[in-house]
């Protein structure tokens, strides 16, 4: 019996996908742009994402129990639907590649210094392969558990770091620089890219998922809060001027504190490493899941496991291409721009077409 995805599983899938590699460099990115008033940009990014989530939910509600594969075909015809699927698949594969390579490079530069990079990527991709052999309802269960663990660890870390930080470092709270905000608007949305997972999750609005939008709203607010706590706690320990020099700002700020009262858990790195790896793993697996899902529907005659194997092999070969961290960061930027296109431009266009077609009662 394949049970359908419950509301909670959907929102935890979204959480796992959105919160990924970015949390390690989030304080640096936010502090660079706006200093101590950076939390405003997180709030604005959150609002934009909520708008995008609303559009996706609206599309899913109009076409009950269908995913983008089906409704793009109804709305725009076969050719454009194939284009959309192609773009989303390319996007998914690139996200997976870039994030895998970034994670493995960060690990190699931090604590596994002598391990060759191909060993780390291979191991990670084998685990992803094993996970992807299962269907979405199993993935929903897995990430429900991982999300709970991650949120608890993140809260513990934030409370611990705040207790060691200084309030003067995060003041002043309100630094409004409207011009700067508008200039860096795409970069504000980067931490939130990932809501497009809603396009491939079938939601049944009649039975299980009636109130799913409320849950989605809740989880996006929670993501915003997690990010704000992340940024503020890191800045309170290190200070704005210091944190902009560190790419792995969060990790550096955790290694700057020691909490004597906790005795054995004086140094908190291990909690952070485990939590961060869980969240990155979620991003990689779910982005590959998007590609697997769409390609499986497209080539329905090929066995799903073979598609997974081919995709993992492609990702592995692609991870061999970028060699330095700078290339990787640029690649991440480009992929995030493409992601913003997918999560804003595409649902807006599709919703407009839906409204038009509904008006003419074609649906």
């Amino acid at each position, binding site marked *: 019996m394949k049970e359908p995805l419950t509301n909670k599983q959907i929102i935890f899938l979204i959480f796992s996908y959105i919160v990924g590699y970015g949390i390690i460099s989030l304080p640096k990115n936010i502090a660079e742009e706006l200093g101590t008033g950076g939390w405003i940009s997180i709030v604005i990014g959150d609002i934009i994402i909520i708008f995008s989530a609303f559009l996706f939910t609206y599309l899913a509600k109009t076409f009950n129990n269908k995913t983008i594969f089906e409704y793009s075909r109804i709305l725009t015809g076969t050719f454009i639907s194939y284009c959309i699927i192609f773009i989303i698949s390319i996007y998914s594969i690139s996200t997976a590649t870039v994030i895998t390579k970034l994670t493995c490079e960060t690990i190699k530069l931090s604590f596994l210094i002598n391990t060759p990079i191909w060993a780390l990527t291979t191991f990670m991709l084998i685990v992803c392969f094993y996970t992807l052999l299962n269907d979405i309802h199993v993935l929903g269960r897995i990430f429900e558990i991982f999300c709970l663990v991650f949120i608890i660890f993140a809260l513990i870390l934030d409370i611990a770091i705040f207790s060691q930080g200084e309030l*003067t470092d995060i003041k002043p709270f309100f630094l409004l620089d409207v011009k700067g905000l508008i200039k860096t608007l795409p970069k504000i949305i980067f931490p939130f890219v990932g809501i497009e997972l809603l396009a491939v999750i079938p939601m049944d609005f009649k039975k299980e998922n009636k109130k799913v939008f409320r849950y989605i709203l809740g989880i996006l607010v929670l993501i915003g809060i997690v990010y704000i706590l992340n940024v503020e706690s890191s800045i309170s320990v290190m200070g704005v*001027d210091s944190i902009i020099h560190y790419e792995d700002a969060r990790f550096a700020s955790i290694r700057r504190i020691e909490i004597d009262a906790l005795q054995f858990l004086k140094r908190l790195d291990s909690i952070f490493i485990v939590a961060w790896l869980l969240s990155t793993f979620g991003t990689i697996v779910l982005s590959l899941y998007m590609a697997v899902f769409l390609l499986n529907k497209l080539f329905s005659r090929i066995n799903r496991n073979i598609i997974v194997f081919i995709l993992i092999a492609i990702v592995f070969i692609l991870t061999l291409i970028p060699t330095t961290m700078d290339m990787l960061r640029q690649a991440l930027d480009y992929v995030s721009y493409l992601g913003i296109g997918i999560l804003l431009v595409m649902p807006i266009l599709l919703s407009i077409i839906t409204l038009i077609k509904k008006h003419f009662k074609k649906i």
Partner: protein
Amino acid sequence: MFNISYIGNTNFNNLYYYINLIKGEIMYKKIICIFLIPLLLFTGCWDSKDINKKCVNISLGIDYVDDNIQFCGEIVKLTGSPREDAGESQSSSVYTIFAQGKTFEEARVNYNSNIPYPSFLGATRVVLFSEEFAKRGIESYLNRVDSLFDYRKTLNTVVCREPTKECFNIETDKALAIGLFIENILRNLKDEGNSICLDVGDLLSDIAFGSEGYVLPYIGIESNDLKYLGLAVFKDSKLIDIIDVQDTEPLLYILADNTKLVELIPDPLDNQNKYSFRVHINKRKISTSLKDDIVNITVNLDLHAELRYQYYKHNISDEMIKQLETELSNKISNEIIDFVKEAQKNFKCDIFNFGEEFKAQHYYQYQEIDWEQAFLSANINANVKTTIVNKNLKSDDNFKR
């Protein structure tokens, strides 16, 4: 593919059976994982290096000797004989290594040629700068600490008066190693609020912020033992002056946490009697403002004082308490104002972190002025309010005889 006449019937049937099985879901997953993971794992463990095969540094010292940088390190001696210590947890002792070189890198190369195992810096407690080295500037070494991954940024930093070689050669019963000894001294002082201890992370943040001055604990050798002598003042990460232990109190009122200082107030009525108070800070707020291009800094302190004892027992009335409170407040505020004025005159740098407070409170104005210059001509005020809280379970007031 296969020539059936060469393979017996049973073999071929088996092969067919296995191929069909492989096409089934379950076997597929397990085969890939069962074969690939061990292939990967048995190629070797690249990074595993046991802790007892590394040299665990407890403390490090940097010195300038004959125009060369000298690294001194204390390394834990790992006992190699199991018999004598069977069943007991082995106590450790240390040995010291000295290495010299023109630059940090050269000194490190000489250091590494002297030790049997690779160096492990994760357990280092203290980094000791000699006065010679501190006078030339510690910023370069702090950036070096920043770049090494396993060098923790929670190291305590200390300046010592004598060359580090002499410090490390002291034999003392008070601790197993000099590094541990210094760390215990610092922790004791910090817990009591008697000193300001900054670790490397704090220093790096201060330097990045652009604040020019900070203070570090200063120790020296007295009668063959290490002793806390006061605070060393740094400007632009170079040592410029020393503050003696007795004179550090006003600085502690402004900067330190958990301060519990003792103040002695002479009795206005009786010349010989003195009141001994223990003062701790209830609230501390530094308010800054900019008016007519002059910075005004006000140190607002809300103190709670506890009467420990009187030299000679007297009756204490309520008016006397109020008088004592005013005396205490005046004494402390005058000390603070004098000290800050002296810092403006002698040290010429802001060692009190007033710049950070100003930036936090007036962000845009901070960007416009040059804080270094502005501090030198700033107006300092101290607003101290003391409340005598409890009298230590002694009822000295209004005795009824």
